[in-house]
């Protein structure tokens, strides 16, 4: 064992409902180092939130657990359920508390780099980041449009649209806090995480996100001409955002001088089905942008001696395949001892290739049995009958059967966080 390596690792999982919030504490001989990975929720745990400002309670718990000092913050990606806890809310929000813990570095994906959109040397990259900006504008408009789907029959659609749309809205307050609370490091596959000085003896590898050039598949981009594709994609989302602005609540009529009136009785049925199809079309849009943002997740692999810890954010198939496609990385992933379950246990964020490769998974008697962390809340996303529910039933069974699972859904009513410790 290297003399300056940590001897133990404590990982605290905070119950944030449908969101992620983890504190990694590396215990060295004479000191501790604290890394906060994500802090956000799109649905706080309801029985607990009635007691007051729950996000503040979590922030205070983090302050207590890290002894008033954070060394690093990782914001894996821009979704609400990963960064809403960083909101400052004019000095009264949980983000103010995190800021006061004076982290020395904030790690974010390259797509958050505010200079990326003006990077004229890489049109594909610029196109991608601009695409994300456009998508987030559209998300806000979808939330507005969802409210226009009136009637009990469209309620399910309205609620889902609103939930996914809200998750994708640009959270300016949290983003600005993250950008200014400490020097930022914008990472991509293979780049330096910038944690070497802060975490001696810990090898940190950035597995994702890949850049556009690294993985033509990210964001479903397949065309030979990436620049053209991203240019079109960027313009498409900009057009959609502009359309949403022009057509949202209080918008001018399409034909101001043209007579409008009551729909003929013979067209009443069409109106209902058209509204429903419009809702489903909006849903396909928000799902697309939801997936694109998930694929910008920072994926970190921490290795200390023979212990391997994997925090992949909400990365989905395209990002995963870029990492798993490299045999050397695949071999290291096989030795994972602790895995933060991707995307709250959704059907497509823990690729079966990854899961099958974990050598430490197995029954209760397995030596150094794989530990897994699942931060989730049922009933927010997906439908069981379509086998899209989150957490996905079959994945949950596999996690229970073949790993030592920490599941926030099983926390006691007054339990804010649960810690597990690994000897390194």
């Amino acid at each position, binding site marked *: 064992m290297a003399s300056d390596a940590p001897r133990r690792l404590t990982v605290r999982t905070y119950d944030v409902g449908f969101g992620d919030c983890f504190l990694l504490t590396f215990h060295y001989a004479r000191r501790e180092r604290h890394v906060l990975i994500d802090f956000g929720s799109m649905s706080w745990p309801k029985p607990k939130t009635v007691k007051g400002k729950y996000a503040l309670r979590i922030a205070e718990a983090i302050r207590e657990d890290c002894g008033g000092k954070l060394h690093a913050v990782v914001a894996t990606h821009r979704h609400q359920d990963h960064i809403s806890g960083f909101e400052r809310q004019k000095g009264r929000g949980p983000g103010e508390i995190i800021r006061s813990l004076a982290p020395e570095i904030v790690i974010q994906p390259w797509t958050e780099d505010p200079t990326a959109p003006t990077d004229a040397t890489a049109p594909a990259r610029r196109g991608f980041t601009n695409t994300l900006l456009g998508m987030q504008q559209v998300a806000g408009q979808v939330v507005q449009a969802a409210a226009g789907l009136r009637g009990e029959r469209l309620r399910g659609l309205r609620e889902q649209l609103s939930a996914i749309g809200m998750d994708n809205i640009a959270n300016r307050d949290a983003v600005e806090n993250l950008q200014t609370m400490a020097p930022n490091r914008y990472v991509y596959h293979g780049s330096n995480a910038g944690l070497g000085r802060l975490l001696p003896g810990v090898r940190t590898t950035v597995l994702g996100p890949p850049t556009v050039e690294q993985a033509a598949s990210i964001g*479903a981009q397949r065309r030979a001409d990436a620049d053209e594709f991203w240019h079109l994609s960027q313009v498409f989302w900009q057009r959609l955002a*502009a359309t949403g602005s022009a057509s949202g609540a209080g918008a001018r009529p399409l034909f101001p001088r043209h007579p*409008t009136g009551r729909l003929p009785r013979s067209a009443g049925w069409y*109106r209902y*089905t058209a*509204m429903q199809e419009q809702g489903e079309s909006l849903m396909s849009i928000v799902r697309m942008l939801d997936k694109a943002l998930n694929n910008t997740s920072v994926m970190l692999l921490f290795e200390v001696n023979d212990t391997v810890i994997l925090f992949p954010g909400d990365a989905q198939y395209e990002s995963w395949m870029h990492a798993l496609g490299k045999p050397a990385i695949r071999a290291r992933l096989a030795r994972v001892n602790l895995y933060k379950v991707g995307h709250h246990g959704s059907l*497509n964020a823990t690729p079966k290739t990854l899961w099958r490769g974990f050598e430490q998974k197995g029954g209760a008697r397995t030596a150094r049995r794989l530990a897994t962390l699942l931060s989730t809340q049922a009933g927010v996303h997906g439908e069981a009958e379509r086998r899209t529910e989150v957490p996905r039933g*079959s994945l949950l069974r596999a996690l229970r059967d073949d790993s030592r699972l920490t599941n926030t859904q099983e926390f006691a009513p007054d339990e804010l966080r649960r810690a597990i410790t690994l000897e390194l």
Partner: protein
Amino acid sequence: MARRAPRSRRDLFDPVAQDVPTRSWTVLAQDPAILGPGGRALTTRVVVPAERLEAGPKGHRIHVIDFDATRDTYYKSRQAGPYDDPYEKVTDIERLVKDPWFHQQNVYAITMATLGEFQAALGRSVSWGFASPAHHLKVAPHAFADANAYYSRQSESLNFGYFTGRGAVTVFTCLSHDIVAHETAHALLDGLRGFFLRPSHVDQAAFHEGFADLVALFSVLGSPEWVELGLAGLAGRNGLIRSRDLTFDSLKGNVLFKLAKQFGREQSFVRGDALRHSVELEPSPVWLVHPSFQEPHTRGEILVAAVTRAFLEIWCRRLEPLGTDRGLPLNRAVVAEEAATAARQVLRVAIRALDYLPPVDLTFSDYLSALLTADLQLHPDDSRYRYRATLKASFESFGIPPANPRRRDGAWDPPDGADELRYEGLHLESLQSDPNTLFRFIWENGEALGVDRDAFTRVTAVRPCVRVSSDGMVLRETMVEYVQTMRVFARELAGLGIERPKGLSGQVFVPLYGGATLIFDQFGRVKFNIGTGVRSARQSARLQSLYERGAFNRGAGERAHFAGLHRQRMLGTKGHPEEQW
């Protein structure tokens, strides 16, 4: 003010001059971005039935409902003069773009004209493919605020979106001739071949897109005004084009490619760039197996490319006797008229081929054999412009041979065992109209027809038709379609000689489809038996293709099917079911 007296039917058309009364209505030749000389609106007139109209317009097949789901607003339609065409002389494009009544007329007329083209090609009326039979297709010209347009079987409608384009200008998809024709083609194809919307081999999904693109493209090419615009750069001041500029490469690069680029660029989010891509796509069998062409919208471009290249060759060939074979220059209008004629003929055979396809599990090779058969039936002599030989060679250059390798011309063969078919007790009249009679025919001849006795069999269409060739030849046929269905657990596939996709659970319930199209001649005898069995060798490839596209994993419904497909055309997405939980 004196109210104008309602007009009698006699006022609407001249029964002596027209045995089938029609009227011509003004529509945009392509879209508002394409202007004619002097910046004037480039319009054309299309022929629609002289039917009774209600406000909408609402005729006997189309009901234009100008309802905007985003704004929850209904725009009233023109009440006065429902039979007039007040836009015939309008040359100001701004006026047309700002007038929703013109938008309503544009979608009504293009949809009806496309329906008319199908009915003329097939020699019979065509129904819509809705779950409960209905005669009216709803058409919403301003359906929603989104860069999309689609056909929906569930809402029995064509829906055209609008969006904010460059310079905050509103772009209306209902004003793009090709987009309206494309969506109408989806609706018509669904009415003719309802099973083509079911999940199957990737060629089948690609066919829906590629075929709709073909209809859209050739509908526009059928307008000489538009082609003449494309030829403008080649013509001298005297309006003549040199013969050396009328070659395949010149027409491809200087005319089609130029026209493709002139399609309103803003609309490319909705329509894709099928014309441009198909012109650019060099013939090669590689595309069929290339990863980029395994999704429906891109794979459909192969089909468009094969037909478009054949069209270009035919166009050149039609110009030869007019002078290019002697090095003579040709008048631009004549060159455009020849293109429009060739386009209309190619479109007609492309549509007619639909009757010679298997009802399920279609491949591009099936479509080629259907094209060749459809044309051969009406035009046995192909020596003048060699349409069939050109189409066959063009498809083959993309690695698509005819599905029937036994005939040199690639057309379908008469059925094996035709002599063994039994017709006793079946009346000719019933064989041309009654599904129960046809089912009995299949029942009696199951073995000779290759019907699988373990599968559920259903006659899904009986369609008598009268087709007339351009030289006046009349062909009477009855097209009959039956579909077989067998549902098995994936674990049972091996017992049927079908490979189970690797990774697919044995517990998954898998539907297998088979069936055939039977073409009866005017004497009630089977001419063709074009089909595929539920246990055919194709099933392994079909199931693998379905599995890779996630068809067994998620209950993705058919609702808004084309909405998603068209969005994919722009942004591209792919499922990875083997990696999902």
